[in-house]
């Protein structure tokens, strides 16, 4: 049966007798076959295309309503976690594992148990073979050949087969294990991925400036979970260049354990904070509120907050006052109703008013009416103008100041205990791939027999990845045998 025949560039392993086999053995044979891999890999590739064409994990409205139920039932809306895909990955893992187990013995023997006594027929059938003659005796010729092989950094094993000297030279045996390491690494990565999926999580949380949180919300479900510690946002800043291109989104975070500060870091995208295995990533931001301070004619003060809602749209972020945009204050025996007519996140005044959708200079267009609600007519409202942070406007003895604009930061929260395994897998894979292609296992088999006029030398060579590399070695052998010196 060809399935079990190992072809190692000319050195064949003999196959067992073909006989009736049961299902388990047949399955083992299928999974130990390279052909299965050559079939499974393109299938996995083709299957992976499906998830890039069909929208993944999108809200129901994103799909064509007549097709959606079918897609959902077949698992195509979360394809990479569906039964199909997991099945494919499982089949590949089995294929990898069985192939590795099956070929382990051969790899071990090739590395540690070289066979010096290769029959002449086998040597002649190797990837490259040559017949040379030499006027020297068998012993002298053997000496020259061994010296030449040693010069090529080969490890040599010598045996005697009757009157013949038989040599087995090898180098780069590490190369045998390249594919092994690569396949092992894939299994390690899979293990790490499964570990991460089972024991890890992904979530989100938002924190307003000056505020803190001790919980987060799981992705895709929104369940609230405890962090086990407090995370506070001291300040959120957007750094930018002269053209208002953002160069950094900085959240100044502080962790508190039992009331005491434990860890702190100013995070940015690509520079998360990790505490007790949980990492916090800069993901989003917005404006959460405006605080307005009113000072009455007698010097008394009142503050009130306006809640702001930040919304992501294709045109950028948009900000709305989500609480009632007006407030009546009574100070010094007088009343005044203040109305926030408009909100600009990046106020620059003039014709344009707003420079960007980033909360770099939040401002409110304030209107006031001291006869509200008795007098609601439009002419009762006085436009006090745009107030940015710390700006004030006066009206009838009142001073209205925009005291504070409160940003919020949106953080990604994640924990992945499988990460060390996955990264080890990556490292192993790179090592394995490099060894597989750049550490070439080479074998040179030589049989020196006595013949008329001296010795007959049969040379066979095999180079796993680069047959042309044998050229130099063969040349060296030819030169050594042609030289006049006896040794």
């Amino acid at each position, binding site marked *: 049966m060809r399935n079990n025949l190992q072809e190692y560039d000319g050195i064949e392993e003999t196959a067992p007798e073909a006989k009736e086999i049961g299902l388990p053995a047949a399955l083992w044979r299928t999974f130990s076959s390279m052909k299965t891999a050559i079939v499974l890999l393109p299938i996995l*590739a083709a299957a992976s295309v499906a998830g*890039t064409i069909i929208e993944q994990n999108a809200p129901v409205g994103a799909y064509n309503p007549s097709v959606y139920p079918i897609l959902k039932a077949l698992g195509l809306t979360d394809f990479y976690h569906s039964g199909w895909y997991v099945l494919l990955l499982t089949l590949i893992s089995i294929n990898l594992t069985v192939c590795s187990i099956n070929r382990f013995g051969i790899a071990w023997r090739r590395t540690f148990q070289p066979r010096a006594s290769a029959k002449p027929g086998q040597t002649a059938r190797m990837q490259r073979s040559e017949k040379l003659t030499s006027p020297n005796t068998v012993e002298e010729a053997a000496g020259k050949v061994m010296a030449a092989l040693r010069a090529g950094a080969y490890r040599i094993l010598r045996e005697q087969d009757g009157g013949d000297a038989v040599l087995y030279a090898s180098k780069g045996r590490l190369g045998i294990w390249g594919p092994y390491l690569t396949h092992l690494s894939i299994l390690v990565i899979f293990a790490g991925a499964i570990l991460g999926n089972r024991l890890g999580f992904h979530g989100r949380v938002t924190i307003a400036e000056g505020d803190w949180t001790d919980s987060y919300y799981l992705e895709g479900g929104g369940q609230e979970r405890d962090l086990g510690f407090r995370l506070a946002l001291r300040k959120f800043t957007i750094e930018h260049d002269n053209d208002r291109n953002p160069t950094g989104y900085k959240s100044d975070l502080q962790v508190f354990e039992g009331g005491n500060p434990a860890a702190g870091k100013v995070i940015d995208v690509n520079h998360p904070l990790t505490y007790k295995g949980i990492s916090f990533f800069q993901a989003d931001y917005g404006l959460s509120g405006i605080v307005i301070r009113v000072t009455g004619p007698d010097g008394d003060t009142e503050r009130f907050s306006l809640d702001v809602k930040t919304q992501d749209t294709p045109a950028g972020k948009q900000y709305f006052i989500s609480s009632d945009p007006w407030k009546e204050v009574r100070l010094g025996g007088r009343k005044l109703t203040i109305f926030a007519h408009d909100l600009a996140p990046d106020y620059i005044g003039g014709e344009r008013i707003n420079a960007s959708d980033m909360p770099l200079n939040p401002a409110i267009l304030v209107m006031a009416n001291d006869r509200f609600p008795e007098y609601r007519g439009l002419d009762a409202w006085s436009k006090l103008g745009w107030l940015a942070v710390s700006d004030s406007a006066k009206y009838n003895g009142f001073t209205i100041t925009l005291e504070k604009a409160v940003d919020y930061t949106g953080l990604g929260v994640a924990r992945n205990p499988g990460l060390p395994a996955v990264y080890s897998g990556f490292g192993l894979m790179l090592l394995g791939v490099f060894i597989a292609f750049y550490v070439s296992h080479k074998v040179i088999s030589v049989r020196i027999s006595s013949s008329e006029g001296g010795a007959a030398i049969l040379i066979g060579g095999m180079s796993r990845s680069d047959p042309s590399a044998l050229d130099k070695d063969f040349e060296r052998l030819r030169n050594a045998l042609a030289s006049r010196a006896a040794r």
Partner: protein
Amino acid sequence: MTIKLGVTLFQIAFVIYLAAAVCYIGHLTARRSTPGKAGRLLLVAGLLVHTASLVVRTIAAGRPPFLNVYEFMLSFTWVLVLLYLALEFAMKNRALGAFNTPLTAIFALAALCMPSAVSPTMPALMSGWRVPHISTALLAYAAFGIAFELAIIYLIQDSAQRKKKSFWSDRLPDLKTADHATYRTIAFGFMMQTLAVTTGAVWAERAWGSYWSWDPKETWALITWLIYAAYLHMRTTQRWRGRKSAVMAIIGFAATLFTLFGVSFLMRGLHSYIQ
């Protein structure tokens, strides 16, 4: 000013590459070796001007030129020429130039049609992983491009030999050389792509908290990787070498092109920075 200088230098390089392409194609049919030698000379000259363009762009942008389509193609064509010259030297055969140089010229022309303004570096792209990730991807995809050309050469040779025609046959590398060169080029590309995907994954974890999100770009990079993994496994069995391998190498490059351009232009996702 320096941006314009960089673009002008690239335009000059493109014209030189065009001339080189003509020479290399001529080399396939000419009796003497002059066209081939001229092609090589022009290609090296073009590469020097191209390198100058890259350097000027790096200075103008304050960072390596990887960040928009124009920059990426500027770098990609550079690697394509560099890898080709290495192969020409190793194989001692100029026939590949008749395929690679026109392909390079086409990509260069496409690049020159793209807006060449320097894009500001978004905070998400400010990472130490950016340069290793993009440079290994460039090396991988350029290698796959060259393997594609070698596979085409193989199929041309194979068909020429079946028809007993020798018009192309003596100028193109022989079947064994073409087959082996395709394999070695893909092996190199595969190693580079493994590096690109893994550095990308580590970077993604630092930026978004997840090393793999099945984003179309990520998934297509994986699809490409799987196709070439299949190719490499085919090499271990004698029966699957030759024509079947060559076809796989071509399919692999189709996947590479889709990963590079199809995803960015046809699909949304985390990787759609290039707008």
